[in-house]
């Protein structure tokens, strides 16, 4: 079987996969990182979003072998070693931006990329457009949008430190 070597949350792994193995299957089934969810499995819902080389992608729509040599960050890789939450996670908690929590890992990963790629600021409209590929069936999005807006200055202040 072919092998894929990639870094996930700072740790390098070499894993045997099939040609058809998806990145999300590698993460969940081979590495046990079940924080990344499979919602629709049809590229619509965004529950599977992770960062590959710093960019948000749908891990259900990428082959594991395509990720060979890349640096992957999942929801498990955000908090600090002592358990301190990433500012985006903290703001999701603060603003009650989740109910059942199923979409939350993908929402948080998409939101972080969105904030990082808009250093000058993010309007509510930009946040809503940026979330087009992430579906939430509980909250109606309002609190998610609030959480992302609140995380923007925190993340950029932290990056400037």
């Amino acid at each position: 079987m072919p092998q894929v070597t990639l870094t996930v949350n700072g740790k390098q792994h070499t894993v045997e996969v099939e040609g058809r193995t998806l990145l999300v299957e590698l993460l969940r089934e081979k590495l046990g990182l079940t924080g990344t969810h499979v919602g629709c499995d049809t590229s619509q819902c965004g529950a599977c979003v992770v960062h590959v080389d710093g960019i948000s992608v749908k891990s259900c729509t990428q082959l594991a072998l395509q990720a060979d040599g890349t640096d992957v960050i999942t929801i498990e890789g955000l908090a600090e070693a002592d358990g301190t939450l990433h500012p985006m996670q903290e703001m999701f908690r603060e603003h009650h931006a989740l109910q059942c929590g199923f979409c939350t890992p993908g929402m948080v990963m998409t939101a972080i990329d969105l904030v990082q790629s808009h250093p000058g600021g993010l309007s509510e409209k930009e946040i809503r457009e940026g979330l087009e590929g992430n579906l939430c069936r509980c909250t109606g999005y309002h609190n998610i949008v609030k959480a992302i807006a609140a995380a923007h200055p925190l993340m950029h202040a932290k990056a400037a430190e």
Partner: protein
Amino acid sequence: MYDFTYQKPGSLADAVKVLSGDPEAKALAGGQTFIPVLKQRLNKPTTVVDLSKLGLSGITVSGDKITIGAMTRHADIAANADIKAKIPGLAHQASLIGDEAVRHRGTMGGSLANNDPAACYPSALLALGGTIKTDRRSIAADDFFQGMFTTALEQGEIITAIELPIPEKSAYEKFRNPASRYAIVGVFVAKFPSGVRLAITGAGQGGVFRHTEIENALSANFAPDAINGIVTPPDDLNSDIHASAEYRAHLVGVVSKRAVAKAT
């Protein structure tokens, strides 16, 4: 998904060799359409050839044209300063494809090779009168699209770049399906010194097409009102659960007017 052999060749010649030697081998660009197709078992390739290591991405401007590498991602096209300044309709079009994560993976060459009848890029290529560069030849946009999901590409032929002439004005307007974000009707208009070209995606049974009657009216007078009174027959248009052929025919006029009003 059925299993397959995965290959990531490091040279164009190697990729062409694998794809030419096996009719059941398939090329993988960004995979944002192809991987869902594989999941549905609508395709059963023996080998999937990943084109990501062939050096086919990048955007260059030279004189009166912009050349876009086939593996350039939608997000890069949407954000590119040269494309925004010189072909704003194309930058806007790229920003409307799928969603943020899809735009981070999907490629222009992949979309054009697939020629989905509701995809966006075919309308830009056709309206701009661009040229498809492949490993073996150049193909004019007017000769490239040959019906839905069908192009002039031969077995094993790989798109390497897309060459687009810079127009005086351009715009893309999309009336989109709110769930899939594909075009129910999408119109790309491009104004050149020699005249106006206008291409419509999403509506035609045979995929993207030019609307010569609207083009002639706009070449004489580049204004939304120039389209008034032009009737598009619904005969060759799509009817599905999203929109009837008659509704699409109506939208062709409405969306074309909006595109002209927006053209810069």
